């Protein structure tokens, strides 16, 4: 009997779909329920199958609950299993009827066949009905003591299920400590593994409210327990090995000989055919050796071959997961992989997401010795049938050019792209040539000779067109017909749909005008007129600005629009090194595939939105905080996040703070320094000019941004704060729970503040200068969340603040709690004043 193929894709109650069939089934089930005729089990099987198949495709068969339970009185195990499956699925929506099943499940829990006992116990715990938990405790208790390991295995997971239905029942029955005993003494490794999974979940959830639970959880990464697991690791099944290895990652060995012992013990796990085991092992190796530069480097060398083998064996999906991790390692330490570049060549039949990773890897590993071959290979892809990949290949060539010292040969290749006469190739190449010229102005002669031959009519893509126009403006003195090309573009102003292109056209006209005034004047007039009449705000404004500044003084205009430029040394990297470190700390997780840290994609109940303020926040927490490794922080969920720092106090080990990685970065790929052309930054961001708050506010006023001079209005605060305040996270958390909210208000954040708040860290530094310390922070644009604390000067009276800033609305929601309620208003004033100065100093 097969599920009816392709019927109701989205069954809704209103649809008649399946209704008559269901009532039909009901009737048949009733007839069979009481029957003891021979062969009745076979007919039941057929009916049950039908029911389950309806259930699978989404038809609601919950109305059969009563009949199904009536039919379940059978010794046929296949029937029983189907019935259990059905009951597990619908008990939650039918809590009253679920009670009917308790009886037969409880009886089966005492069956003499361990299989039946296990199955019944599993089904009993899977009912997910809160008011039935009292019936679970007894069978679970005896299940945990069962002589058969299968039953114990099921019972352990049952305890976890019970915990999720009713945590208090589970704790009251003292199940966690029974699990702990089993974990340490059971002979069956799967029972041990299940205990470990269950206890990790239970204790993590309990840790925020129970000291004992957090101590227990800590004991899981204690030396005796870790060694107990490591010594038996080969007895565990491959999946449980992953679980153990994950736990070992959190363990901090006391000295380097311990580190080597563990690594030697796990060495052969790198030869495992299961990629999950290998990656978990690699994570242990990488974490253990973080502070041992030489060994860490050796680890990279050691894991290279197993990773490459995993990439090329297994299904495309598995190999993608491994390749993503290899990608991460290549980006961190490209020089280790520079001789392996051929492994990163794309194969024609690979999916785009694999090719894209490989292109990035090829770009990263390019150095003096392999660039020629890599670029030759990339040029092959430029003619690829897969156009997005062809484009990225060209971009990759450009990136390599921008990171090399000797770009001679690459420039030639790029220029050849321009001659390929494929519109997308030309488009990408133009953008690249533009970037190249911004970094290496010395190539302008070679480049513009080729660029000059490109007809602007063949360039349609806005980005490419903008690049071409920029070059025409920038090098108009060297390009014979630059004014005329620009003029013809101005004539077609109305047909140009992209505002970006029109903006570039205005600027290029200006530059051209300064260099070749007689040829450009009339066209410039036409361009400014068209620009001022433009419906796009920015285009209009820029045209008007040019017009006015020209009228004011032409030489000033030239100084503003076309000053001498400095070559760009390094283009800004898109991802901060802090984010990259965090992703590295979350090795062997989804973070690596998504290329973002977990707080960016997991939701609140499964991962707290908070992260530790690992830069400055830790300084204020004191010594202990220096030992916090980000991996541990982000492992925790919302509430107990704050606990980890204190926990780690005892685990001071060889690690210093998380940023001390021994693998040095390739400076060019991670530096966020970017020198902008002076005038552009001066025009777009006038506030940079001011160094004191007063100065910048003056400019704000000048520009009419309408910022109230907030700091001046606020009266100097009466309250004095301790600049060296210290508070450990668990105390903070405890206080936060105990104290009532003293004040809750909304504060506006200045536009400068919003602009400066690209990452939480910026604000932390600022607030610290006002003696307000951050204990935890997190979030991403537009929502940031911070927990601050401050202490009264020469008094141990604390202020705790929760501050949620939404950058799009420029508002901060602030909740303040204080030991001394009377001064909370003063503190609030102080806090507001500090916050309002953010971004202005």
């Amino acid at each position, binding site marked *: 009997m*097969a*599920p009816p*193929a*392709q019927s109701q*894709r989205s069954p809704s109650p209103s649809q008649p779909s399946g209704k008559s069939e269901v009532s039909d089934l009901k009737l048949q089930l009733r007839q069979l329920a009481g029957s003891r005729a021979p062969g009745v089990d076979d007919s039941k099987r057929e009916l049950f199958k039908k029911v*389950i198949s309806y259930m*699978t495709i*989404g038809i609601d068969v919950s109305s059969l609950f009563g009949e199904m339970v009536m039919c379940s009185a059978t010794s046929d*195990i*296949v029937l029983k299993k*189907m019935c259990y499956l059905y009951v597990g*699925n619908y008990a939650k929506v039918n809590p009253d009827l679920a009670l009917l099943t308790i009886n037969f499940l409880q009886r089966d829990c005492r069956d003499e066949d361990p*299989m039946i006992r296990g199955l019944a116990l599993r089904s009993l715990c899977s009912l997910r009905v809160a008011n039935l938990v009292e019936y679970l405790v007894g069978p679970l208790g005896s299940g945990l003591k069962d002589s058969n390991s299968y039953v114990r295995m099921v019972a352990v*997971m049952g305890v976890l*299920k019970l915990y999720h239905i009713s945590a208090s029942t589970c704790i009251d029955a003292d199940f966690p400590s029974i699990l702990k005993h089993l974990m340490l003494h059971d002979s069956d490794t*799967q029972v041990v593994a*299940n205990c470990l999974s269950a206890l990790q979940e239970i204790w993590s959830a309990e840790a925020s409210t129970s000291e004992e639970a957090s101590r227990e959880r800590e004991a899981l990464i204690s030396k005796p327990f870790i060694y107990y697991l490591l010594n038996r690791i080969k007895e565990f*099944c491959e*999946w*449980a090995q*992953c679980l153990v290895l994950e736990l070992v990652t959190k363990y901090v060995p006391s000295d380097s000989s311990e580190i080597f012992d563990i690594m030697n013990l796990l060495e052969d796990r790198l*030869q495992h*055919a299961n*990629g*999950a085991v*290998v990656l*978990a092992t690699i994570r242990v190796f990488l974490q253990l050796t973080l502070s041992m530069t030489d060994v860490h480097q050796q680890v990279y060398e050691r894991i290279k*071959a*197993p990773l*490459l*083998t995993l990439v*090329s*064996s*297994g*299904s*495309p*999906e*598995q190999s*993608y*997961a*491994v390749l*993503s991790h290899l990608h991460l390692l290549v980006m961190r330490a490209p020089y280790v992989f520079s001789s*392996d570049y051929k492994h990163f060549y794309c*194969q*024609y039949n690979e*999916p*785009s*997401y694999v090719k894209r990773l490989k292109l990035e890897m090829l770009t990263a590993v390019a150095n003096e010795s392999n660039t020629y071959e890599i670029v030759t290979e990339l040029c*092959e892809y430029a*003619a690829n049938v897969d156009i997005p990949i062809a484009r990225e290949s060209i971009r990759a060539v450009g990136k390599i050019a921008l990171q090399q010292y000797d770009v001679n040969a690459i420039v030639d290749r790029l220029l050849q792209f321009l001659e390929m006469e494929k519109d997308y190739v030309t488009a990408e190449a133009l953008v690249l040539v533009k970037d190249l010229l911004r970094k290496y102005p010395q190539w302008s002669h070679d480049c513009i000779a080729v660029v000059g031959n490109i007809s602007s009519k063949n360039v349609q893509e806005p980005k490419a067109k903008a690049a071409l126009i920029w070059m025409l403006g920038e090098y108009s003195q060297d390009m014979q017909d630059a004014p005329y090309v620009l003029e013809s573009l101005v004539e077609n102003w109305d047909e140009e749909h992209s505002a970006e292109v029109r903006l570039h056209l205005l600027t290029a006209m200006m530059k051209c005008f300064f260099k070749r005034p007689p040829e450009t004047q009339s066209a410039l007039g036409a361009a400014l007129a068209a620009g001022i009449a433009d419906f796009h705000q920015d285009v209009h404004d820029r045209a008007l600005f040019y017009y006015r500044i020209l009228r004011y003084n032409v030489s000033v205009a030239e100084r503003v629009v076309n000053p001498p430029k400095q070559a760009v040394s390094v283009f800004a990297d898109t991802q901060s090194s802090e984010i990259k470190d965090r992703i590295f700390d979350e090795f*062997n*997780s*989804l*973070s*690596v*595939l998504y290329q973002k840290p977990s707080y960016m*994609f997991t*939701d609140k*109940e499964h*991962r707290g939105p908070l992260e530790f303020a690992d830069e400055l926040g830790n300084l204020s927490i004191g010594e202990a905080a220096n030992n916090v490794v980000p991996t541990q922080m982000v492992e925790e969920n919302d509430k107990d996040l704050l606990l980890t720092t204190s926990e780690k106090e005892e685990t001071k080990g060889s690690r210093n703070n998380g940023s001390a990685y021994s693998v040095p970065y390739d400076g060019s790929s991670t530096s966020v320094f970017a020198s902008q052309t002076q005038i552009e930054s001066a025009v777009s961001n006038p506030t940079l000019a001011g160094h004191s708050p007063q100065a910048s506010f003056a400019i704000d006023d000048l520009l009419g941004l309408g910022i109230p001079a907030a700091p001046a209005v606020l009266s100097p605060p009466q309250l004095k704060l301790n600049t060296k305040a210290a508070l450990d996270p668990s105390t903070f958390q405890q206080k936060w729970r105990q104290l009532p909210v003293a004040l809750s208000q909304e504060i506006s954040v200045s536009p400068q503040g919003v602009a400066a708040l690209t990452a939480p860290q910026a604000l932390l530094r600022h607030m610290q200068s006002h003696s307000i310390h951050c204990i935890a922070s997190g979030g991403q644009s537009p929502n940031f969340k911070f927990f601050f604390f401050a202490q009264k000067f020469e008094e141990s009276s604390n202020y705790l603040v929760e501050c949620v800033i939404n950058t799009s609305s420029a508002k901060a929601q602030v909740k303040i709690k204080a030991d001394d309620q009377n001064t909370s208003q003063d503190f609030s004033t102080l806090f507001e004043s500090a916050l309002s100065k953010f971004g202005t100093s």
Partner: protein
Amino acid sequence: MISQFFVLSQRGDNIVFRDYRGEVAKGSAEIFFRKVKFWKEDGQEEAPPVFNVDGVNYFHVKVVGLLFVATTRVNVSPSLVLELLQRIARVIKDYLGVLSEDSLRKNFVLVYELLDEVIDFGYVQTTSTEVLKSYVFNEPIVVDAARLQPLGPAAIFMQGTKRMPGTAVTKSVVANEPGGRKREEVFVDIIEKISVTFSSSGYILTSEIDGTIQMKSYLSGNPEIRLALNEDLSIGRGGTVYDYRSSSGSGAVILDDCNFHESVRLDSFDMDRTLSLVPPDGEFPVMNYRMTQEFKPPFRINCLIEEAGQLKAEVIIKVRAEFPSNITANTIAVQMPLPKYTTRASFELEPGAVGQRTDFKEANKKLEWGLKKIVGGSEHTLRAKLTFSQESHANLTKEAGPVSMTFTIPMYNVSRLQVKYLQIAKKSSSYNPYRWVRYVTQANSYVARI
């Protein structure tokens, strides 16, 4: 830890659906399917195996056109989940003999039984076919294998060669033979996928062999097996720098790296290159290996494209089989992208050609040439006359190609890795199970640039 597991058909119907933790809303299968189907508006790009929608992470692997999917809300190891999905597919195949939409639909209750034991509350319990045997009670309903798309690399043995007992690979580990007693046999397949890129002048730019020694055991009583490989086999090259001049001609087989199934013991591997293992039931890879050592590519490809008058061009593709004449490659397909402005292609095969077919795929401007078989040592040529809709300005070789090729060569392996003997340790003179050691070479990415 996963939250749900389900299998979807190509049309997006649920074939099985199991919710383990109740953390992800019911509509997840539909959300998933829509996302996979319409990953990019233009439909050009495939969805990656893992993605996140509204805080739910979706993992999927494609097996015989079916989608095996898992969901979770937590930040788990993607390798673990993808490996698990693949393993579930394999376990199901071990039970059903054949994995297909049809067999899954017929046996979905059995599959539910398996799923109940493989995962409990989101945590993996076991994926061992053998362990699962004691918990699974449904008898598989065996579907006819002959008319189904076969699964997995071992399935290639079913094509063409009569030496292989084709039904064996589609035999369930639990179903009884019609005759009652089960046949004692063990299959060892050495499957090599090769990737070669030839430059336009015929040099080998890159080459790699990705090999697997796959085993499928139907032996009762779990006897120990010893597999002996080439004695001169060595593992690990000095660095991974490619060097095609070195080591040619010498007989040693040098693997770059390899990994082993957990049942494999390597006690005497360093001494005499033998692997010992007690094979678990079902199909599993004993060893995966990777090789970049120079090898003789089985096919040489020559391709020429040149203008032949206005709006016309001619393509000549030559394929030469460079393996012994007692070996025959089958299911060969040659593909070549043509210039975008190609409107027509007329083909000319060599006189007396049999079992060949040619096609011009208008939609993606591709030339296709299929050959049923190629005997070792032979050479085949295809000529195609192209008609263009516009004059080409640029170099034709930049507008067309590269030529790619897929093929299967049974009883041939390029690495020269061999199973010297397969010893079954069971002390009984009457016990003599069937042992099948089979080799096959397949193209992974076989490309010639023009």
